[in-house]
């Protein structure tokens, strides 16, 4: 046995991974069973796996997290605009519904179903957006809304913020113009100087202050707020996915004018000229 050549580490590693079969496998098995040296190499191979398994995981750096979250938020804004534009405003560019007669072949059917599913999903979204819009009214209660207005929105969900979010079919003629004179959320101007390092904390503090002020003195809180410009409203609804934001604050970020927009679990910082087509997301953070 001592005269036998030892298999190299790669052969032993392959044997351990179950890759050596047939005669080669039997030879390796017989050798390893009686060879201390090769048994030791086997232990060392196990130690390599063990060392790899026990190297502590690197945590994702905050800067990378923020960067990717911002990139995704901006991608979400772009894609929802494209979807809404094609659904709501520009039927000519809507997702193509094939006009050819259906074949029964399974492959062909799969391909044809996709755009149809996309269309109905987008339509469901629009209906959902209308519902969210109404929730927004009920919650804020400060806009010139009424039950009849709400009723008409229910019967006509496509008149909801979907159009507003697409930045279309919406008169841009003054601060009260958003949503045709109805306000789903208000813009505060806290003057907070948000900083990159403390963004999430500052947003949470601002939310707490806003909520306290609305509770203690609702009329004063409402007076200190204003309705968003249409472009800003469209921008905000894009970022939030048509959800009513918990905060839209005109402020500064890193010393420059910016809007800070928050939903319960996330906040974005956008430039002052944020629009639906160009959200200009400067930063984003989880809350």
């Amino acid at each position: 046995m001592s005269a036998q050549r030892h298999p190299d580490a790669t052969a032993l590693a392959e044997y351990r991974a179950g890759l050596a079969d047939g005669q080669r496998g039997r030879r390796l098995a017989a050798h390893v069973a009686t060879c201390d040296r090769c048994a030791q190499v086997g232990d060392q191979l196990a130690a390599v796996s063990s060392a790899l398994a026990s190297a502590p995981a690197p945590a994702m750096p905050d800067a990378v997290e923020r960067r990717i979250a911002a990139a995704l938020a901006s991608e979400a804004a772009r894609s929802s605009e494209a979807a809404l534009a094609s659904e709501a405003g520009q039927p000519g560019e809507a997702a193509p519904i094939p006009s050819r007669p259906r074949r029964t072949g399974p492959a062909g059917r799969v391909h044809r179903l996709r755009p149809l599913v996309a269309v109905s999903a987008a339509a469901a979204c629009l209906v959902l957006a209308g519902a969210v819009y109404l929730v927004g009214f009920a919650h804020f209660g400060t806009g010139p809304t009424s039950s009849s207005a709400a009723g008409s929105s229910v019967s006509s969900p496509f008149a909801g913020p979907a159009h507003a979010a697409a930045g279309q079919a919406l008169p841009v003629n003054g601060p009260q113009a958003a949503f045709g004179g109805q306000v789903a959320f208000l813009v505060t101007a806290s003057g907070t100087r948000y900083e990159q390092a403390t963004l999430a904390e500052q947003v949470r503090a601002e939310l707490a202050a806003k909520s306290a002020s609305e509770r203690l003195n609702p009329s004063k809180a409402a007076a200190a707020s204003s309705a968003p410009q249409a472009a800003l409203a469209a921008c905000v609804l894009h970022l939030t996915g048509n959800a009513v934001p918990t905060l839209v604050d005109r402020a500064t970020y890193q010393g420059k004018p910016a809007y800070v927009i928050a939903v319960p679990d996330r906040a974005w910082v956008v430039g002052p000229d944020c629009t639906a087509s160009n959200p200009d997301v400067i930063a984003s953070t989880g809350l």
Partner: protein
Amino acid sequence: MDAGEPSDAELLRLHVAGDAAAFGLLFQRHRDRLWAVALRTTCDPEEAADALQEAMISAFRQAKGFRGDSAVTTWLHRIVVNASLDRLRRRPARSVSWSGDPEALESLVAHDSGGGPSAAAIDTRLDVDAALRVLPAQQRAALVLVDMLGYPVAEVAAILSVSEGTVKSRCARGRARLLPYLAHLRGDSAARGNQPGADTVSPEQLPSRMGDSHPPFPRGGGG
């Protein structure tokens, strides 16, 4: 994962249906694992960040084409690994040569979450990070997924779009190649911190450690 939270597949469906927040949630849920894959495959924090961002944007756009014939996590990992390998192909010089500059490794260690691992665990990581650079990228990707992240061979085969035999072969060759660098280390079983986010992955998506493994080394038994 909490019972009330949507599954990965549900989040992806919501995303495809136009929910602007769904994909961000999916990213947050798996970001640490995906980061570990990108970082270990590229061996470079900058490249890893670029690769992961590319991958997430790409996944965001490809989501409509996701057929559900693999787990969402498998699909996400596949996109991240491919983006990482792509970046290495574009910049081959950086993938294989390591100057031995400790500061380069420092940046990998600097961002540890609170508490942090023991000094011994950090030593292990420094050794491991340096050693991984020795490997060809394909072997490294396989070994990172199987030995470091503990995914089953079948899962890794799906991620890498190769056969299970190829995964095993790449891992075996990689282990043999790392022998001179790592065999002196004894795994510190107390420092098994490399399965980030395990508590946020649903059971059917969370692979167990693979079968051809070895008994754990006793704690503190190393030298």
